[in-house]
């Protein structure tokens, strides 16, 4: 569920009224839920082409969002009215059930018996077995980009055709969620023994069969008649005959396409102002809003003299008026945290996050600077990843906020690849970038704060913190784990503060009135699409 705060500006009041409208609209749509109709086509836009369809080759959103229509995982994210947007509830998918040993080291998965692969050569409708799971996971461990998600796994075995056993070297409560990760699609054995080219061919067990992909034009899908999923009434899923995913890079072009009905479901960033325009022109628009599971982050490199002093880092944190920034530039959303606000059960509670990151105090910031020996401020290179105009605008915003406390930020714009390289090399003074779409607190913590980790650009090496991060993985009890996670975040806010969270923006997911059953999901792959139907 979207969480919001008390907005001080008129723009935010406007946003709230929009939100109220949206909340009203949803139940209406739900009551109108007569019997779903079969047939029809739905078009969704994404921002880019899929470079290829090999799930092991990249973590690109454009790839995995497309693969999700055709492929399935062993375990999936639960969805439904009772489950919050950022909450992970493990749900059966290819595995219909599983057991976890008491020591937390052995996971036994029982696979569905009724699953067949899509009727695409060379797999051609063969039945799904445990060999496919083993082959997929082994390949991932050997060289897949998602290998890290299986790092806790020691052995993968298949006692019979419909059972898979994973053993862990140490307990890891995150494993189930890792298996449900958007990159963990199960492929047939043929994908790994040279039977077909993963780059170009997609054969899965999902609700739709990928039939074509033309760069810059569309990726097309048709219904998979042998899909194993059924709705509550026992009807065969999916309802739709066909789906098209169209890449439109340019925001304005995307708006035009959506406004003129060439796109049914909007996906991607959208400003509230633009949304208001669209609403004025498209009758009966469904407006669904969520908080992005990514957030902007500002890395302060302690290797740069002033940033080695935590008081300076605190001062910078206090100088930035994130709430207003999010309102004006992103048109809503939530203030960021050590763990992103989209992970509603794991991030710190709203009021605490707002107290830590959403309450600017320039006076205190100036005092801190003076204490640290910079009463007149200083100048630093503010390396800004060009990840869209809003990112740049946030950078400019922060620049003005910092100027208020006497710090001069010289903006240096770099593209994404250069920015990531500079980050990994530690070759920056301050770096402003957008975080990957993490779905689990452990991902945030282990990538940012463990020595040698991939996102530990600031070079954090705090044994106490490392021990805490390792410990939370072993805590089976959800409440206890949550407390531990909160402690870690508080510890980081107080003692580390090298990565300042920015803003998690409001995501608008408008859809045309003819689309029913559409629920945006945090995980990639449009999992609710199998239940979407259209009225004409």
């Amino acid at each position, binding site marked *: 569920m979207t969480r919001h705060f008390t907005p001080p500006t008129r723009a935010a009041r406007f946003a709230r009224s929009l939100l109220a409208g949206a909340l009203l609209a949803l139940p209406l749509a739900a009551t109108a839920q007569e019997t779903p109709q079969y047939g029809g086509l739905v078009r969704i836009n994404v921002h880019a082409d899929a470079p290829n369809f090999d799930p092991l080759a990249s973590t690109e959103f454009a790839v995995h969002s497309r693969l999700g229509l055709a492929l399935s995982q062993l375990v999936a994210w639960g969805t439904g009215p009772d489950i919050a947007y950022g909450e992970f509830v493990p749900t059966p998918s290819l595995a219909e059930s599983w057991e976890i040993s008491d020591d937390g080291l052995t996971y036994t998965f029982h696979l569905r018996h009724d699953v067949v692969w899509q009727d695409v050569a060379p797999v051609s409708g063969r039945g799904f077995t445990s060999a496919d799971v083993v082959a997929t996971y082994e390949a991932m461990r050997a060289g897949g980009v998602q290998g890290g998600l299986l790092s806790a796994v020691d052995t993968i075995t298949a006692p019979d055709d419909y059972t898979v056993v994973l053993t862990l070297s140490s307990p890891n409560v995150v494993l189930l969620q890792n298996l449900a990760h958007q990159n963990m699609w199960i492929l047939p054995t043929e994908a790994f023994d040279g039977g077909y080219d993963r780059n170009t061919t997609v054969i899965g067990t999902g609700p739709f069969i990928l039939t074509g992909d033309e760069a810059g034009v569309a990726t097309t899908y048709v219904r998979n008649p042998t899909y194993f999923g059924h709705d509550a009434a026992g009807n065969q899923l999916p309802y739709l005959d066909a789906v098209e995913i169209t890449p439109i890079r340019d925001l*304005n072009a995307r708006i035009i396409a959506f406004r003129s009905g060439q796109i049914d479901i909007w996906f991607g960033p959208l400003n509230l102002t633009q949304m208001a325009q669209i609403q004025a022109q498209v009758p009966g628009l469904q407006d669904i809003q969520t908080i992005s599971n990514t957030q902007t982050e500002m890395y302060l490199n302690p290797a740069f003299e002033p940033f080695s002093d935590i008081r300076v880092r605190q001062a910078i944190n206090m100088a930035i008026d994130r709430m207003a920034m999010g309102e004006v530039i992103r048109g809503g959303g939530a203030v960021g945290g050590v763990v992103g606000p989209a992970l509603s059960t794991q991030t710190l509670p709203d009021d605490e996050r707002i107290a830590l990151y959403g309450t600017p105090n320039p006076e205190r910031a100036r005092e801190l600077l003076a204490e640290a020996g910079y009463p007149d401020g200083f100048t630093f290179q503010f390396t800004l990843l060009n990840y869209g105009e809003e990112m740049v605008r946030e950078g*400019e915003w922060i620049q003005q906020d910092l100027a208020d406390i006497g710090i001069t930020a010289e903006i240096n714009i770099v593209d994404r690849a250069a920015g990531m390289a500079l980050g990994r090399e530690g070759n920056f003074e301050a770096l402003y970038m957008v975080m990957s779409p993490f779905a689990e607190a452990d991902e945030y913590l282990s990538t940012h704060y463990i020595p040698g980790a991939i996102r530990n650009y600031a070079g954090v090496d705090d044994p106490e913190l490392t021990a805490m991060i390792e410990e939370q993985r072993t805590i089976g009890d959800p409440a206890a784990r949550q407390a531990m996670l909160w402690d870690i975040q508080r510890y980081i806010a107080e003692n580390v503060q090298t990565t300042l969270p920015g803003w998690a923006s409001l995501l608008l997911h408008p859809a045309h009135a003819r689309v029913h059953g559409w629920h945006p999901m945090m995980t990639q792959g449009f999992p609710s699409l199998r239940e979407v139907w259209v009225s004409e």
Partner: protein
Amino acid sequence: MTLAPSPDVVERRPNRFLGILRALLREPIGCTALVILTTVLLLALLAPLITQYDPLFQDRRAVLKAPSLAHWFGTDDIGRDVFSRVLYGTRISLLVGLLVVTFTMIIGGMIGLISGYFGGWTDMIIQRIVEALDTLPSLVLSLFIAAMLGPSVRNVVIAVTLAQIPRFVRVVRSEMIKVRAQDFIAASRVIGASSLRIMLTHGVPNLIPTMLVMGSLSFGIAIMTEAALSFLGVGTPPPNPSLGTMLAQGTRFIGIASWLIVFPGLMLTISVLALNLIGDALRDVLDPRRR
């Protein structure tokens, strides 16, 4: 210095510039162009006097305001005054244009002069390099250089200059070849003047009209290229108000805040128009057939 031309040539130089200016003012086109360009220049140079708004200051309570008495050209998406940004953006455009033209004229002019005067192997090698640069569409070349160097005003100047040089070299070279073929060059050689002296005292003065015309056109092209590069995100970096950057920012609000693209574009067009007109007028004024 022995290379100094005879005194009356020296004393005539400033007169010649004033003469060109006077001749320009006599032409209706030249006059119009000078008036427009002067206006644009004054607007850019006197920006701090004309507008009280800081082009970078974000008035966070006045976001995306339509043009009004307070904000003549409206405000942008974080509350910056568009009028002020257009003026300061024009400054950057003109600065980039000026630097590009200066460097292009000096570097391109020199290379073209040498290539055209000496011919032979020197010319061959220079021509091949120029062709190499010329194989790529100039924007693609600029784009590539700018992308490689990263966005900054300095890098834009480098990228645009490099892309402009081939054209300049080609024109100066062919003009120099024409000049070299003239009898007055032969006469100077017969008098015993060295190649360097001939190039400087006969070559350069005769190339100046061509260079001036080319320069004013290059100026316009440089401004447009700067805008294009900034639009594509490899030009003048934010928060500097470049006209191209402003257009790029404005595209997100097409149909919502048309002032964000209308005014910067208009200013861009007017600047280029003035420079093109000056080029046209110079071409007329400096045409030897018209004297």
